[in-house]
């Protein structure tokens, strides 16, 4: 069989980049001011700057550094999940069960804690349980060739159910202080540790996706799984690994969240899967696979974080935030399509 080059179809360059565009893999990225201005990340930077400027001008205490540092607590754990979700969505998969995995990991930690396991052991258990749940998802998706959305809707119910069966209407509390230190603590007295963990993982994921062969293969799988398989990429092994990664990140988020709030209830992190997916889509990752960057997702995380923070300072109820997030999501995917449609009509 002739080798199928991934870059073969990539010569066409129309310069558009949007949340829904079909992915291309170019051998080298064109660099220029015009190309840079059209990038999704640029738009996010502008929006973020506008939000920060608007918040700083209109709200007292918005630009206070301590406040800003504390506001990162609201999104750090979700963003950790969103990082792994990014890779999954890039390969055309999705994991709805992440928040339920977080719940199971937290319940496992609570159980171990009640048996007297020390903080490092608890963290290890949380991460391991997360990885285990992710492995089950990955095996179901790859072994039986079932669409991941179906598998993870099922396992979501299953994992959340396990948490419910173990806890009922009870809660695990009395976690050791050392665990709380990870969730609530500050490094150098100012920066929340969670935020540093997030930045470290973001850097790691960015290097993996944008700087290694593995990353290029992840894009290749997302662009065309069949072609990727024909060119010798072990597609299913990659998928499995990414589901394990998603579970592991949910486990890590579970360790941090459990430490931060100091208790485990069965409804912990309810609905976070949709928030994490929203972050990823807002970050310019195509739901059709094959396109998106970690930088974009991180910018989307900051943008949403700043909006939440600003609305919180302005005493707007949290549920209004869901309207803003939903509307933001709809607008960001609609506008590029409308612009693309509008452009040729004006030219004609």
């Amino acid at each position: 069989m002739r080798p199928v080059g991934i870059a073969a179809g990539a010569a066409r360059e129309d310069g558009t980049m949007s949340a829904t565009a079909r992915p291309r893999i170019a051998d080298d990225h064109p660099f220029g001011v015009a190309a840079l201005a059209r990038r999704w990340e640029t738009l996010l930077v502008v929006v973020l700057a506008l939000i920060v400027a608007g918040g700083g001008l209109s709200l007292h205490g918005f630009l206070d550094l301590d406040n800003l540092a504390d506001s990162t607590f609201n999104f750090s754990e979700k963003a950790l999940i969103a990082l792994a979700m990014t890779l999954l969505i890039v390969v055309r998969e999705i994991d709805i069960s992440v928040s339920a995995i977080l719940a199971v990991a937290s319940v496992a930690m609570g159980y171990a804690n009640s048996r007297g396991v020390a903080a490092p052991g608890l963290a290890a258990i949380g991460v391991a349980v997360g990885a285990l749940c992710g492995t089950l998802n990955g095996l179901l998706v790859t072994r039986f060739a079932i669409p991941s959305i179906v598998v993870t809707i099922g396992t979501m119910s299953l994992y959340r159910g396990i948490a419910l069966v173990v806890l009922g209407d009870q809660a695990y509390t009395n976690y050791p202080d050392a665990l709380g230190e990870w969730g609530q603590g500050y490094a150098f007295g100012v920066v929340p540790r969670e935020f540093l963990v997030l930045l470290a993982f973001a850097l790691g994921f960015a290097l993996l996706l944008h700087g290694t062969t593995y990353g290029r293969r992840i894009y290749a799988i997302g662009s065309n799984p069949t072609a990727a398989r024909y060119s010798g990429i072990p597609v299913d092994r990659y998928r499995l690994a990414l589901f394990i990664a998603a579970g592991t990140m949910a486990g890590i988020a579970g360790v941090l969240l459990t430490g931060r709030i100091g208790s485990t209830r069965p409804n912990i992190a309810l609905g976070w899967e949709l928030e994490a997916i929203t972050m990823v889509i807002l970050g310019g990752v195509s739901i059709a696979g094959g396109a998106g960057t970690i930088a974009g997702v991180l910018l989307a995380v900051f943008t949403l974080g700043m909006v939440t923070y600003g609305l919180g300072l302005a005493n707007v109820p949290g549920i209004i935030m869901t309207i803003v997030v939903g509307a933001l999501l709809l607008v960001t995917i609609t506008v590029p399509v409308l612009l693309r449609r509008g452009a040729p009509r004006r030219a004609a």
Partner: protein
Amino acid sequence: MSVRQAAPEVARRRDVRRSRAGWLKLREVQLGLILVVLAAAIGLRAPVFLSGHSIDSLLTDSAILVMMALAQMLVIVTRGIDLSVAANLALCGMVVALLGEHHPGLPVALLIVTAMACGLLLGALNGLLISVLELPPIVVTLGSMSVFRGAIFVLSGGAWVSAHQMTRAFIDFPLERLLGMTHLVWCAIAAALLAWHLTRYTRFGRELYAIGNHPVSARYVGVPIVRRLFGVYAISGMVAGLCGYLWVARYAVAFTEIAFGFELSVIAACVIGGVSIAGGVGSVAGAVLGALFLGLINNALPVVQVSPFWQSAITGLVIVVAVVLNAREGKRAGKQILPLHENAAPPEAAGPVAALHER
């Protein structure tokens, strides 16, 4: 997967139906048998479960899920998904609850029509973005889900509308009886008959399957994809609106979080009923049985004295088992890459290519 599976699926079902005792191999029949066996097994342990009263309440409790699953089935058949149905249901429920509270004189029939119109409008909004702008359904409905849910809070100011603020007629309608069955059950039966007619005997319904089986071919043969997709999301919204009224009236309370996460139960019912998330495959019987299956589990747990906390775990397990079984069946059907002609030998020779496709 769906592209390869679609044509053999049709051929397989036809072959299966024609062969002797082949109807036993149909997914809907198997699911129905499992349902009966399960009900009988529970009845053996707790005979009260098979009493008329218990079955009546099982059907009444499942009615809303049945209707929602039918609408979702139509959406999923086109390769789409509607995650906003639960939020739509809650919003329409709140709208009619507030309307009924402030204008107690309004007849219930008018309120039901209002709920359906409200749902239709919200569904049409989804449909517009998905059909005309060709945006991915999962993203659109994820976004509109948040917007709808937030809109309930804006509308109600976060307050509850509870039983004493609703008129008797408003609350009574869903549980009133006609020929021994509640209105809820009659609504579900009517929805099932309508959906059955729609999917089997109307151009609209058949074209939904065509779109789901192969969108490109559907376009080539002249299926008006934009109008069909718009229509299917509008229908999904309308059903959600109707269920919004039924839900609020049945439980006699409306607040921001009602039916939170219900969209996933609805999709789960479809998946259990053999509706393929890859599009083009799904039947009315499957969706109804899938919804009844979930309803059966929910109603049986207290009867056999299992803690209701087990409900979610068991539901999850059932979904996973159901999709694994469906996938195995699909795999067997996928081995043939061309639809079988009558009396033709199975194309064993297709080996290596088909095997590659299987990976």
